[in-house]
């Protein structure tokens, strides 16, 4: 009996209040219902994606056998990977520079760096279209070099996010730790590697995740910078949907969702519980 005796709900025990629980439930529903429907209907044995007709895996087969769709997916993942790595380096260095040094026009530099975040994507897309046309960027390069234009465009809008996240992380860094490392004999680089880098690691992981997903699902800017041979996944899906929304699209999207979930999981694992504990 004693086990089930319920204590009265304390004023701050929100998790035990009905209205709080239903609010959380509604939020979850709102966020994930569309995704769930998309995934469920990827198994629907019907050409039209409206009524449930029965379970099948044939659309997965179809999607994976669709060469242009697979090619687009590979392109997207390649671009996302390259853009993430380069954004990470540029973004982290920019963050450290802005955090550590004082120099003339620092405010201006800081402002222009976050510009790609606030400028509407459509404007960036058009800007890149004009830019690459003006500089006569070669379009007939072999794979993966033909993805360079899109990758450059993606880096442009990804690295400010990395810089922002890393900068926020740097704000909590105790500069005495770096001085302590130097005091114990470390050079500038050793102190960076052994003390500063471990501190900003959670920021780097978060920034990488942000950059990767931003790049992977970007449509607008990619649409303006991609050529006929450099179709990315979102652009391909868009062109498929223009004819009809088949379960094939659902299947491809489900694969993509799965991929990102796995990647996120790995990234969080890499960061470790310790990294999260250190954030205090």
């Amino acid at each position, binding site marked *: 009996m004693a086990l089930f005796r319920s204590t009265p709900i304390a004023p701050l025990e929100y998790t035990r209040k009905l209205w709080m629980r239903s609010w959380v439930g509604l939020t979850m529903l709102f966020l994930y219902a569309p995704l769930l429907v998309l995934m469920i209907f990827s198994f629907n044995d019907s050409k039209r994606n409206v009524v449930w007709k029965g379970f099948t895996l044939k659309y997965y087969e179809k999607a994976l056998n669709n060469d242009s769709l697979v090619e687009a997916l590979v392109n997207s993942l390649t671009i996302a990977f390259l853009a993430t790595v380069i954004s990470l380096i540029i973004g982290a260095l920019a963050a450290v520079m802005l955090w550590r040094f004082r120099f003339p026009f620092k405010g201006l530099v800081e402002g222009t760096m976050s510009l790609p975040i606030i400028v509407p994507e459509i404007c960036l897309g058009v800007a890149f279209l004009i830019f690459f046309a003006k500089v006569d960027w070669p379009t007939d390069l072999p794979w993966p070099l033909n993805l360079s234009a899109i990758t450059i465009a993606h880096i442009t809008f990804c690295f400010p996010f990395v810089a922002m996240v890393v900068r926020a992380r740097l704000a909590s860094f105790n500069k*005495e*730790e770096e*001085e302590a490392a130097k*005091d*114990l*004999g470390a050079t500038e680089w050793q102190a960076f590697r*052994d003390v500063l880098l*471990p501190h900003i690691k959670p920021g780097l992981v978060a920034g990488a995740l942000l950059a990767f997903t931003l790049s992977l699902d970007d449509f607008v800017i990619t649409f303006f910078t991609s050529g006929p041979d450099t179709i990315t996944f979102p652009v391909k899906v868009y062109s498929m949907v223009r004819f009809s929304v088949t379960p094939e699209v659902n299947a491809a999207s489900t694969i993509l969702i799965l991929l990102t979930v796995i990647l996120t999981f790995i990234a969080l694992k890499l960061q470790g519980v310790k990294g999260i504990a250190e954030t205090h």
Partner: protein
Amino acid sequence: MTDTKAPIIQIRNVSKRFGKVTAVDNISLDILAGEFFVLLGPSGCGKTTLLRMIAGFEMPTEGQIIIDGQDMSLVPPNKRPVNMVFQSYAVFPHMNVTDNVGYGLRIAGVGKNEIKDRVAEALELVKLGGFEDRMPDQMSGGQRQRVALARSLVMRPKVLLLDEPLSALDAKLRAQMQFELSDLQDKVGITFVTVTHDQDEALSMASRVAVINKGEVAQLAAPSDLYEYPANRFVADFVGSVNIFEGKLTLDEPDKAAVDCPGLGKVYLNHGVTGPHGADVWVALRPEKIYLHVPGEGKAIRAAAQDAPDGHNLARGTIKGMSYLGDITLYEIQLEGGQIIRVSRPNLSRHDQEDFTWDDKVSMHWRADSPVVLLS
């Protein structure tokens, strides 16, 4: 072993300016090998800047710092024979205790086995045996400080610098650490240079103290000299608690002197002060060196007469404030001239504090060697 009388750190005419602000103003002093040296001063007096210049984190605007005979002007912090314990301890949060303490040795390329031995030895020294695998966030502030200490001591520096080492600890732990630090310094024989704003800390640990005020050395002396023979009003007031009265020097002979203080009356001393006759001077009188008496009794006068045969150091007043501090009771007494004088009295028996209370008329006397005459 190094000669304990030789200076290990020579600070020569060092100034540091940040823009228009002068943090350190032409300081010259020698720190001797093997001593426990304390830089004491209020916040913003430049003591931390001086310490950071010794460590190499700040460069002097002018002057020279010589450590162990070597000019440090162009030597970066990672190449100096000194190590620092930071105010925040700056223990690396992502490394366990062993890795923290062994960090400097790893950087120096010391062999694995030697690192292991020296880390164990250092941890033993700071009484952290058994904590090898702990992460810093699983330790208390006091334990983290020991990690920082071990991390510096393991490097066997010529000089250990400590920036406000006890300021973040609670009162009990602070008192304990004061003893432990002195003890540790005795054991390892390394020169310690500590920065603090806490006079108790300075008095209890130091072999010598430099009191810093506004970027300049106000006085450099052993703790007891600092307290009993302050050189000026700043030191008298900053180190300990003191009553200061303005007056004129009316008598100054080799074996006696007298100062006429409008607030206190005539103050007699049993030694000369070698000040200019008739000059404006200040008399400093510590609260614990004043005896309290119930007035009307001849005892006070007799006691005073015995202590100062050439002139009685006597005063009368009314108790206006009292604070009972357990071991002592502090009285604020309004003198007949209106000024307030502070007197402390040890509670030698359980009922001592009942002897005097608010608005009581009292007499006071002090010995002729108690007052200090300050010329500035």
